[in-house]
């Protein structure tokens, strides 16, 4: 039997090496996005399976590395001195701003790999950040780099296509340094302990993790669980697009089938099939957070993505919406479907993906481009209310500071606040969305918006309510107008505004089960009106003081012991309450 102490030590050294590469990438990069979390680092076994991933890696990017390395197969590098680089969405997933590198790591006789991904702030295209709401082809989203050996030419090409050449150069160097640091770490570890022992430790860990997943999988009820969702229309007047997911759990296999999802659209809300698979993996992992990356395999799930659907983008369809909207919708759908199959781990749907606002213009110091990604309400679970203004499930990053933005860009925030009462009702309510309103301080700026969830709010779980939908409004030419979630190049002059209100998360459990203590808090904090407390939750407050609830009426209402005259009286009384 292997020595458990040595095994433990080797595994922790492997993890430390992967973490070191990621810490180094972030610390040496110059973009706030990379520094604050939009990276992933993973180590792979010689058979191509994932071994370890960075402790702080962004979940979707980490999953995308797994599907990418798996898809490369024979094309994976064997010469440690020549890493490969790519951002090709059709041949790896993600968007053009997701730059991935993979390098060979000799492991004794065999070769394994280390892969590092970073989300760059810009790599060209018609709108900064790679999401052009009006894009009809991928060329409008930026520069595509097919799988290529890493050298200075590639770096030069990327730098000269970026709107932020200086930071892109630094970020690129940092990413290469991370790959090299990871390789050096592994080489050193191998020299000290020999790869036979290290690989044996890794495989034993993988086996244990897979066993743990298999036993956790027993918690899933068998059956087919179908969920569907609607995406905003790409162009005003067009029909909204549907996503459909059927999860079938049987004794032997789990099928994840997107049959019934609408075809590719002429707009950025498509993603490649590898992205779809990565999103499914990512959602699945959210359900079993206690199991490490190596416990999950692509083959655990039988995933079917219908050809020609918007989840199977092919050249030249644009895919810019992958990371900001579509992946999160798929992740949510997966969590929603599995929540119906699993007790205790289930939760309501998140109000995210992100909503992207871009303001570009010519300032005193030259061209500027401000890109904001908002948060939304998180889904509630059996453990409590959802998180307000949470980051989407695909990411693990942070929002910039308003003061920092106002110092660097000619905009002024009018509002940045919780959008109270927008989480779905329930025993535990969904997290609230966010209201964000920005004023342009400069003439001749261009506004682009890529937002979603204006048609259908995040679903609840266990009879919890749906969260509110999102909306976008612009203030131009002296008046407010409702806008679609797909704006590109709208002229903004001084004093013009954009307001975005993001979606709430879904609620969990029947609203009548919500504890009166929590409801009183909701009423006191202005999250819930007295009318809604009565209508949705069956609790009647006698006065505006939230401590003062009418226990007799509440009992009647909550236990459905109402006569018809009671109902009429109640309805009148409730209608008379202020909102």
């Amino acid at each position, binding site marked *: 039997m292997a020595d458990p102490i040595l095994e*433990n*030590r080797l595994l922790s050294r492997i993890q430390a090496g992967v973490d070191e590469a990621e810490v180094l990438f972030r610390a040496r990069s110059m973009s706030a996005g990379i520094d604050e979390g939009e990276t992933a680092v993973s180590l792979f076994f010689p058979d191509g399976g994932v071994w370890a991933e960075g402790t702080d890696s962004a979940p979707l990017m980490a999953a995308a590395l797994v599907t990418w390395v798996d898809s490369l197969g024979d094309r994976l590098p064997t010469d440690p001195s020549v890493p490969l680089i790519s951002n090709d969405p059709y041949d790896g997933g993600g968007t053009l701003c997701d730059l991935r590198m993979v390098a060979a790591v000799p492991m004794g006789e065999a070769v394994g790999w280390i892969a590092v991904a970073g989300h760059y702030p810009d790599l060209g295209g018609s709108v900064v950040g790679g999401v052009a709401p009006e894009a009809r082809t991928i060329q409008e989203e930026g520069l595509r780099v097919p799988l290529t050996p890493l050298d200075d030419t590639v770096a030069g090409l990327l730098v000269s296509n970026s709107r932020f050449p200086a*930071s892109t150069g630094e970020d690129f160097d940092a990413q290469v340094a991370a790959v090299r640091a990871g390789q050096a770490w592994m080489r050193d570890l191998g020299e000290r302990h020999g790869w036979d022992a290290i690989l044996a430790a890794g495989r034993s860990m993988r086996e244990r993790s897979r066993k743990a997943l298999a036993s956790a999988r027993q918690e899933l009820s068998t059956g087919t669980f179908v969920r569907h969702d609607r995406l905003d229309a790409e162009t005003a007047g067009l029909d909204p697009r549907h996503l459909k997911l059927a999860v079938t759990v049987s004794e032997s296999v789990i099928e994840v089938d997107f049959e019934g999802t609408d075809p590719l659209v002429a707009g950025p809300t498509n993603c490649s099939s590898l992205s779809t698979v990565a999103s499914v993996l990512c959602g699945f992992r959210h359900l079993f957070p206690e199991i490490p990356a190596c416990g999950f395999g692509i083959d655990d799930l039988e995933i079917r993505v219908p050809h020609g659907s918007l989840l199977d983008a092919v050249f030249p369809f644009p895919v810019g919406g992958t990371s900001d909207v579509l992946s999160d919708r798929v992740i949510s759908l997966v969590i929603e479907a599995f929540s119906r199959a699993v007790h205790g781990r289930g939760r309501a749907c998140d109000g995210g993906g992100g909503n992207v606002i871009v303001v570009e213009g010519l300032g005193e110091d030259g061209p500027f481009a401000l890109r904001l990604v908002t948060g939304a309400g998180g889904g509630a*679970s059996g453990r409590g209310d959802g998180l307000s*203004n949470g980051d989407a499930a695909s990411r693990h990053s942070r929002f910039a500071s308003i003061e920092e933005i106002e110092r660097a860009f000619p905009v002024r925030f009018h509002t940045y606040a919780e959008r109270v009462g927008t989480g779905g009702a329930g025993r535990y309510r969904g997290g609230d969305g966010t209201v964000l309103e920005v004023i342009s301080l400069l003439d001749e700026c261009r506004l682009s918006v890529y937002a979603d969830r204006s048609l259908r709010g995040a679903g609840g779980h266990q009879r919890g309510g749906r969260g509110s939908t999102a909306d976008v409004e612009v203030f131009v030419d002296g008046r407010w107008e409702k806008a679609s979630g797909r704006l590109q190049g709208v002229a903004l002059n001084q004093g013009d505004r954009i307001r975005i209100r993001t979606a709430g998360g879904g609620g969990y459990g029947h609203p009548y089960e919500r504890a009166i203590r929590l409801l009183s808090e909701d009423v006191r904090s202005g999250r819930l009106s007295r009318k809604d407390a009565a209508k949705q939750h069956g609790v009647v407050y006698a006065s505006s003081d939230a401590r003062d609830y009418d226990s007799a009426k509440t009992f009647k209402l909550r236990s459905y012991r109402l006569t018809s005259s009671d109902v009429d009286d109640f309805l009148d009384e409730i209608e008379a309450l202020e909102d």
Partner: protein
Amino acid sequence: MIIGIDIGGTFTDLVSSEDGEIRTVKVPSTPDDFSEGFSSALSVATSDPGAIEEIVHATTVATNALIQRKGARVGLITTKGFRDILALRRRDRGAAYGIQTRFEPLVPRELRREVSERASPTEVVNPVDPDELSIVAQSLWDDGAEAILVAFLHALTCPDNERLALDTLTGRWPDKPIFASHVLSDAATEFERFSTGAASAYVAPLVRSYLSGIGERLDRPETLRVVVSDGGLVSADEAEANPVRTALSGPAAGVWGARAVCEAIEEPAFVACDMGGTSFDACLVSDGVPALTRDRELTFGIPLAVEMLDIATIGAGGGSVVSVSSVGTVEVGPEGMGADPGPACYGRQVHRATVTDADLVLGRISSELKLPSGTRNLDVDAARKTLNERVAQPLGVSVEAAASLVLSTVEEKMADQIRQMGLKARQDVSDHILFAYGGAGPLHAAGIADPLGITRIVIPPNAGLFSAWGGLLTQPRQACSTASAFDLVTGEDQLKSVMALNAKRLNADIDTASHALTVRSRGSARSISLAADATESAPRLEERLRATPGAGRGPWIVTRVSTSIVGSRACDLPGLLPKTVRVSDPESTTRSVVFTDGRSADCLVLDRGALSEGDAGDGPCVIEEAGATTVVPSCFGWRVGTLGLLHLERNHA
């Protein structure tokens, strides 16, 4: 007479120094009113209160209130449109995977109110109305607020409105705790500054009553000095003015104590490692300067943006609970058993195994554990039994293997923490010294040093009580900073004048004070910190920035200039370092010890009190003193150096 007092949850430790004579006192803490324990310790220490020149006090009152959420009801008055900044955080989530639940800010929504006012980064856009302010403040008091924080957007770079608001409110309610964000924190980002302000206001009433309670029991209250998170010493009034500065009071005292010792032995680069019962704290010190940070999250969603020592903390100490995860890995902490009921070997609980139980099972600590308060008999069988149930059986290994696994997991985790600190600070930690203290520090020092490639370890005398000693060795540090926004090169004159101004505020000379610039490359949101000399020219600074990875390519904008001075408090180091007391019979004994590599050996057990300068030997052995045990594995040698310091050095085999 100089006195250091450290009030913990269980015990109040006191260390006094008078004419080179050292005394230690340990009395039970009095959680209902901590000042009671404080004064009873003081009365044991001296019968002549008039002889006390200085009392250096490290306190955990603020930290505990924040972590346990037992602070005051705080009202927030903020800019219209930004009521929820504290709740929105930075749009983050607590963990990468799994369910995230609601976050509760320190100020509940109903006590967050807005007033019409607005500033841009440089000027007031909409002035604040004093009448509106007073009405809002009155409504907050009426609704039960016990403290008020005024926090406006851009108040750091344009403080006019916030200052006016503070003056208006304190003028009207002079005795109430009222704070303004720009006074409490110099963070130029709203969420971190508001959060720091809220945390200060949240603990203010508690800290105020605590310190005044202590003050009342002192003949001369002005002798009281409080250790703050950057290791400086402040008066009780200064501590009350920004109570959150005391959040890392205890660990900071230890680090500065370590610095004083390492300075005396001319070792400017070291890692201070404090491992106690509940946590492990490490701080990287290079060139004699402990790493400082302004960016630290106390818990999810509560960053504290005041200057503090950059101490990495993990919830793993002697009393931390160990368990086995569903995938068969050993997990340690953050849950701890504290001193009561304590580890399984204390005999008061049998359900949770702890790190100390693993140390006992392996013979690394004696079953007759010597503490400063006397000998404690530990129940080896109870430790074995619990460890067997909780760790060995689930893993299918022997109890000894399980215990070794627990310890190597703990040590690896700590080494990782230190390695990452080095990486972020761009320092190679392998040429640093590991300075280990705290009850469990010397026990694990070699195990932590090994994976880091550290070859030299120093353990101070009375290592278990070193944090309390730290206060006596602390040097008063004063700092101030000025927010700015000018180009590094074209603003060179401005830079010098800000440095001069800062130095003047500290009553110091511009050339002897230490300066640090916060700069960001134009077009980048990312700031980095750069230590600067007052005589350094801008082109020279630029050159250094170019050579700094992650600093960008310029041109650089200076966003903050910080200046600090480290005063010199007369302290006689050899006098302050305690003499180690003998704990056992002079005849040396042996006991069988299992090391974390799984090998066991019969080890000599040495009494540290019986050793004197120049004594040396080779591992494996165990060196015991009251309150701490040092384990020397076979690959290390030991010797006793000056000041009673125990040196461990790796053999070059």
